[in-house]
């Protein structure tokens, strides 16, 4: 499995993805500069976290016009996997690969802390490595992470089983206390209807090594590698 990590000006979790996928999971990884118009020999694209273009207009709004995004859209249309993490998720919604939007946290503050997530779908290509009915712990680190979508989109997401992760209590209950940013229906991560493009606000790449917080992020990347091998 070869991962390509897109680097926008202002990306800052690019190297975290690179290091972890390469050293903790042993994948082949390369960086893709946002000015590239094409890429070769890449199986899975990662849009990493950070503050592309300072997130100055709206998170992800300017990055979606980067030259590389045409090639990313083509990659998506081919059915190849794309993972957007944090700012990457925001970019995926701005460019229209995923529905909805990510708004200011309800508290109006940047929040960094570990959150509990309930795995909602066992059979998605991104979550099949997780065991049934368990919660995982990943950190969030964002100011604009409140997922919002209109009622008909929500119904569609629910009916098609496209909500992959929800914020929950440690036991897996969907509580207000377990929802750090006010996301609608506690949504933390979703995929497109074809099941090859996924975005989530929490950071799985920060949980690949036991000495820095744990390994709850590993099954996500392992699932992708297996499903799209």
């Amino acid at each position, binding site marked *: 499995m070869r991962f390509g990590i897109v680097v926008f000006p202002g990306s800052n979790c690019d190297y975290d993805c690179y290091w972890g996928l390469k050293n903790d999971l042993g994948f082949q990884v390369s960086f893709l500069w946002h000015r590239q118009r094409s890429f070769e020999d890449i199986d899975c694209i990662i849009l990493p976290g950070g503050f592309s273009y300072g997130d100055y*207009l*709206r998170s992800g*709004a*300017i990055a979606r*016009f980067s030259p590389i995004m045409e090639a990313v859209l083509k990659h998506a249309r081919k059915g190849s996997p794309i993972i957007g993490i944090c700012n990457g998720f925001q970019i995926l919604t*701005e460019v229209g690969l995923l529905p*909805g*939007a990510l*708004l*200011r*946290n*309800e*508290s*109006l503050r940047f929040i960094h802390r570990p959150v509990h997530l309930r795995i909602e779908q066992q059979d998605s290509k991104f979550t099949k490595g997780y065991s049934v009915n368990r919660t995982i712990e990943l950190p969030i680190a964002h100011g604009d992470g*409140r997922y*919002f*979508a*209109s009622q008909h989109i929500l119904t569609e997401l629910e009916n098609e089983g496209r909500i992959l992760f929800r914020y929950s209590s440690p036991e897996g209950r969907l509580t207000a206390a377990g929802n750090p940013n*006010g996301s609608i229906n506690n949504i933390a991560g979703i995929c497109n209807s074809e099941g090859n493009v996924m975005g989530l606000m929490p950071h799985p790449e920060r949980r690949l090594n036991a000495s820095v917080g744990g390994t709850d992020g590993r099954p996500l990347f392992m699932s992708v590698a297996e499903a799209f091998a």
Partner: protein
Amino acid sequence: MLVKIVITPKPEILDPQGKAVAGALKDLGYDEVSDVKVGKYIILKLSPSPGLKLEERVDEMCRRLLANINVESYTVEILEG
């Protein structure tokens, strides 16, 4: 030529900034305030290209980049001068 664009959250979207400001104004005794929306105000300085409709161009800028039309609405004011 100046173009002024005001972008606000759509009415159905929770606007925590607006809520916070409304609460603060109420606390200060401004009971007449019933709702607050906090948005963005963008000023464009431009020279219109001949043969292109300014209104349409600006509307396109709003839709493509300046506003996220899923969650935001916008108004455009074109000022001569």
